[in-house]
């Protein structure tokens, strides 16, 4: 006991860190190397097609990432707790429809529509969370049920018709406008992308720095141990699902603004894509570990892949084949590097 040598106590002091370096550190901490795959893809496509590496195309890729990225962030939160969320896609649609109801049908001002979407998302997330935490329904089933319920409700509420936001000037600017472009005209990054990064930063902060985030990891790591530590696990789990739901609400706003309409039939199949981004980003489906940065990179990999193959005009059936193969290869390369490192 007393023979403990003092070498053990040499713990590196924690300096105050910038958000960026913190994000990067979290990445390397998890030995997140999917980043390398992303770079390889970017370089590869640039070499093969001169049209790929244009500012406008890079912005198109980021724009394409924004919705899936936001949904993937929501899915990451839930997956870290050891759950899964299949409802992210249809919840996104449902929140878009609710925004449409508030803005177009009820004619209320823009901020109320934004609030409605996010609140709807959080409430629906809370429902899923309640099913999982209180009713002990496996997350897969709880969120599958929610996925179907929300898909149906979106159609019911919208009357199976798209709701257009033509009466709400500025709504389409949420995603399409470019605050950055107004300041730096050479860099017309759309607001949707900006929002994605803001959401990512916030989620990253919550996961890394707050009690909620800490419990999210702990629940995924060993829920029973957390419960036996006297933590009200149910409440925290519900909070995470609600937060994820709120983020889906932001996703709903992004897609609605991008399409300038709430498309009630959209959203099915988006859950798999979001979860894929999460897993490619190195988050474990069994919970307890994962990073938002990884998820972002995962979402970017998917978007770059899809866009690049399209720009190369690869035949559509081959696009699918190649996408599947590259996803497997990217994760494999990641595994290999992790093993070595």
């Amino acid at each position, binding site marked *: 006991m007393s023979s403990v040598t003092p070498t053990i106590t040499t713990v590196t002091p924690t300096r105050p860190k910038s958000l960026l370096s913190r994000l990067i550190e979290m990445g390397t901490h998890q030995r997140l190397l999917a980043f390398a795959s992303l770079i390889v893809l970017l370089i590869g496509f640039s070499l093969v097609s001169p049209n790929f590496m244009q500012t*406008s*195309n890079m912005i198109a890729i980021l724009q394409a990432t924004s919705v899936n990225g936001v949904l993937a962030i929501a899915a990451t939160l839930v997956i870290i707790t050891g759950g899964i969320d299949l409802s992210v896609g249809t919840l996104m649609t449902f929140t878009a429809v609710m925004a449409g109801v508030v803005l177009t049908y009820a004619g209320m001002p823009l901020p109320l529509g934004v609030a409605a979407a996010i609140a709807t998302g959080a409430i629906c997330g809370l429902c899923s969370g309640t099913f999982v935490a209180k009713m002990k329904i496996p997350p897969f089933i709880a969120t599958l049920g929610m996925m179907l319920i929300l898909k149906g409700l979106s*159609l019911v509420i919208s009357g199976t018709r*798209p709701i257009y936001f033509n009466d709400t000037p500025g709504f389409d600017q949420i995603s399409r406008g470019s605050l950055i472009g107004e300041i730096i005209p050479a860099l017309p990054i759309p607001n949707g992308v900006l929002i994605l990064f803001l959401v990512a930063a916030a989620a990253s902060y919550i996961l890394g720095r707050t009690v909620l985030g800490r419990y999210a990891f702990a629940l995924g790591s060993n829920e029973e141990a957390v419960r036996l530590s006297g933590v009200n696990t149910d409440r925290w789990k519900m909070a995470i699902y609600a937060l994820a739901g709120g983020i889906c609400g932001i996703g709903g706003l992004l897609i609605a603004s991008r399409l300038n309409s709430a*498309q009630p*039939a*959209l959203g099915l199949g988006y859950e798999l894509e979001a979860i894929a981004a999460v897993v490619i980003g190195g988050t474990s489906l069994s919970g307890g570990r994962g990073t938002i940065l990884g998820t972002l990179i995962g979402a970017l990999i998917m978007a770059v892949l899809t866009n690049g193959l*399209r*720009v190369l005009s690869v035949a559509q059936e081959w696009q699918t084949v190649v996408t599947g193969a590259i996803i497997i290869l990217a994760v494999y390369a990641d595994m290999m590097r992790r093993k070595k490192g």
Partner: protein
Amino acid sequence: QEEVYIPLVSKGFQHQFWQAVKAGADQAADEFGVRVTFEGPDSETMVDRQIDMLAAALANKPSAIGFAALDSQAAIPLLRKAHESGIPVVAFDSGVDSDLPVTTATTDNVAAAALAADKMAEHIGGAGTVAVVAHDQTSRTGIDRRDGFLNRMAAAHPGIEVVSVQYGQGDQLQSTEVAKAILTANPGLAGMFGTNEGSAIGIVNAVREMNATNLVIIGYDSGKAQTDAVRQGVIAGAITQNPVGIGYETVKAAVMAHRGEALPNVIDTGFYYYDASNIDEAKIAAVLYD
């Protein structure tokens, strides 16, 4: 000499209908010596995926672009961008609510479905109950064909009641199950209308599996299974558009627009009703596909 490149962003890819459009486009591409690519999302609900496809197509600086909008409003910013870069847009299949496209090559789905209603009424003798197996609840074609049929029935055939409209996503298996459930719930049903190839084949499968007799089936589009069923009389008759023509006309119009030639506002590619009696006529055979 610079290559003329014309990407077509369609509403779908895997369905036979879209493959026929693609075939027409390829035919025109050969004829005019241009390069054509053809892409479409997995399902007609994926509006944003189609926008991404359009964005990627524009990145390649095409000579002209063919576009079948899932939702015309959603695409307007990109179409405007194309317009500003001097890339002419040819709309096909359904129009775009805007004057940006130089022309639109399309079928009047509402009128075509109304013709289907008339033929149905003719076959069942103006009275009885019928049902619709539609392929989609929210897509433009799904809505137009369903409503074209329903409205015509209500307006012109008061003796006929449409008892059920259900959706099978154009998937043959799902449509089969839907049609079977409709047959179970409505034993005295006189006829069924399937709004696309998958829906019509689904009805045919259901009739086969349940040994239902005396059901009048009106189909839509072609494809080998459907043309076979028409020949055998299982399907009383079907509407066909001219998908190959749509593809051909779209590329042709795009080439002309690229060359700065004048185009009409709308290129109507037409639709036809075919049954066992006229299926082999040259005019019909030309627009059918397998």
